[in-house]
């Protein structure tokens, strides 16, 4: 009987913790579907309830920071900034694992150490470089930047994953006269699909959620990505929590969807990403 009570207590604590953790998100959800006049007494106050999607419409076509346009820009940046580093990083991972060339290990160690440096370390010269090559304030500039910043962890992650694949199949194919590129494309790449799913899920989330790089590299209002518009939605003197909540829901929907659909790969990627 004592064990039963213990189990009940654990369940109650666990569910209470889960509830505490979800309450702020519930607040955002409720605030997004209720008018401003009802929110001043707290989103949990249910004395008068009128549900509407007004806040979503207002956020979507907001005068200073339309979220609809922001979501479109975020997509334009995120899709290539996920696929490009995926391709280049996988190639590099294969190269670092299977090809022999001078300086290979030092270069790889250098790439691993790059994982820890903050984006602030490159901000000013990067701004200057992109200005010089006329890519500042362009989607292409931001996409290339995200690609370069995604490459260190993708290369490391993919190399670690490929190192668990048997090398014998590749050697046999090589004896049969297959070239490196054929081996990579026909043998290695299909085997790395689960790892590619992990990389895609995480890189997509990171690029979509990024704020700092977009903040310094895209300043034209009509080109700003979704996350950049969140601070702009704050009014000067008071915050319209309804509109801000609706915008937050719209922007967060994408990474939440990725997480829900690719949960297994997402978690594996997160665990693998942290193991060097």
């Amino acid at each position, binding site marked *: 009987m004592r064990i039963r009570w213990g189990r009940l207590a654990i369940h109650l604590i666990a569910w209470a913790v889960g509830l505490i953790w979800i309450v702020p998100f519930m*607040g955002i959800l409720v605030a997004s579907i209720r008018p401003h006049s009802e929110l001043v007494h707290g989103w949990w106050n249910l004395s008068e309830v009128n549900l509407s999607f007004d806040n979503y419409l207002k956020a979507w076509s907001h005068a200073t920071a339309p979220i609809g346009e922001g979501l479109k820009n975020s997509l334009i940046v995120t899709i290539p900034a996920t696929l490009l580093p995926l391709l280049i990083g996988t190639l590099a991972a294969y190269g670092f694992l299977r090809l022999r060339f001078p300086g290979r290990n030092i270069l790889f160690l250098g790439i691993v150490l790059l994982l820890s440096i903050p984006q602030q370390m490159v901000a000013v010269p990067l701004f200057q470089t992109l200005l010089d090559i006329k890519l500042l304030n362009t989607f292409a500039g931001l996409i290339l930047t995200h690609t370069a910043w995604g490459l260190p962890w993708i290369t490391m992650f993919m190399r670690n994953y490929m190192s668990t694949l048997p090398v014998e199949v590749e050697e046999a194919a090589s004896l049969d006269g297959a070239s490196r590129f054929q081996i990579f494309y026909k043998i290695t790449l299909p085997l790395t699909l689960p790892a590619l799913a992990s990389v895609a899920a995480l890189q997509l989330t990171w690029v979509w959620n990024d704020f700092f790089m977009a903040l310094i590299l895209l300043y034209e209002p009509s080109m700003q990505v979704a996350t950049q518009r969140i601070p702009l939605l704050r009014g000067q003197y008071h915050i319209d929590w309804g509109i801000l909540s609706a915008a937050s829901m719209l922007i967060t929907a994408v990474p939440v969807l990725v997480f829900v659909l690719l949960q297994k790969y997402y978690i594996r990627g997160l665990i693998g990403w942290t193991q060097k």
Partner: protein
Amino acid sequence: MRVQIRRWFEVIVFVSPALVLIGFLVVMPAVRTLALSVLNEEGQFVGLQNFSEVLLSRDTLNRDRFPLRSPPWGSVPHNAVWVLLHLPLVVMLGMILAVLLKDVTGASFIKSAIFLGMVTPMVIGGGVIRFIFDENTGVINAIFRLVGLTELTRSWTAYPDTALLALILGSIWLWTGFSMVLYSAGLATIPQEIYEAAQVDGANALQKFFYITIPSLRPVTITVVAMTILWELKIFDLVYTATLGGPGGSSMVLALQMYFLAFRSLDPNRSAVIATFLTALTLIIGVWFVRSARRVEG
């Protein structure tokens, strides 16, 4: 000879696109920032003069106020306090939750709820923190009001003595999912036989936790500690939306200070000092992590 050429061709195709992009958009700008930190506005070498000016300034370390008076204390103490409060709580909460949720009905739902903070863009996380600490719309103030703590009922992010604390508490809420998920995965790798053997030897639940679970999770703990410190040092988005480092610099952190110096004060040299200092801190953690991860793996 032909074999040699083919080999080099392979290296170029596979490795060089990544190296060119990383070199051009990560390494080179980082080196230029390092150079900017030891130059003055005219581009002359001034040694460590910028460092002594910036790192000893009130914005970085306010010795009149730190540690005896209320914030602003300067960005370095703010980041340090962040690490000191956030790190132990996140590590402990993550580990305890992972163990607790091991055999709870509906655990995957609770885990997803806790992990939601990790999936959310931190810009929005900052907005949510401001929302829950708001005087009228904030759920935390509603609870304080309910239990009669009226002196605590106010917009926490709008006052210098509570802004930093509110952000740190909010960041614990956002980041705990990370450590919980890693610890959950770690728990699954501990062989069940060890627990069974301990059971036979008469160990109770607490003894099993302290003598089996914690030591077995050591590699995970190293990972969680390293990643969490890196996150705390680099914290930016969350502060940007919640307080912009205010009020009066009372929640200013290094990454945001660098941004303001570079893109508001338009002072590349001083901002480079903060960037270099921050990078030095993160590299210490990075090197420590790589070395201890290797040691653990044997």
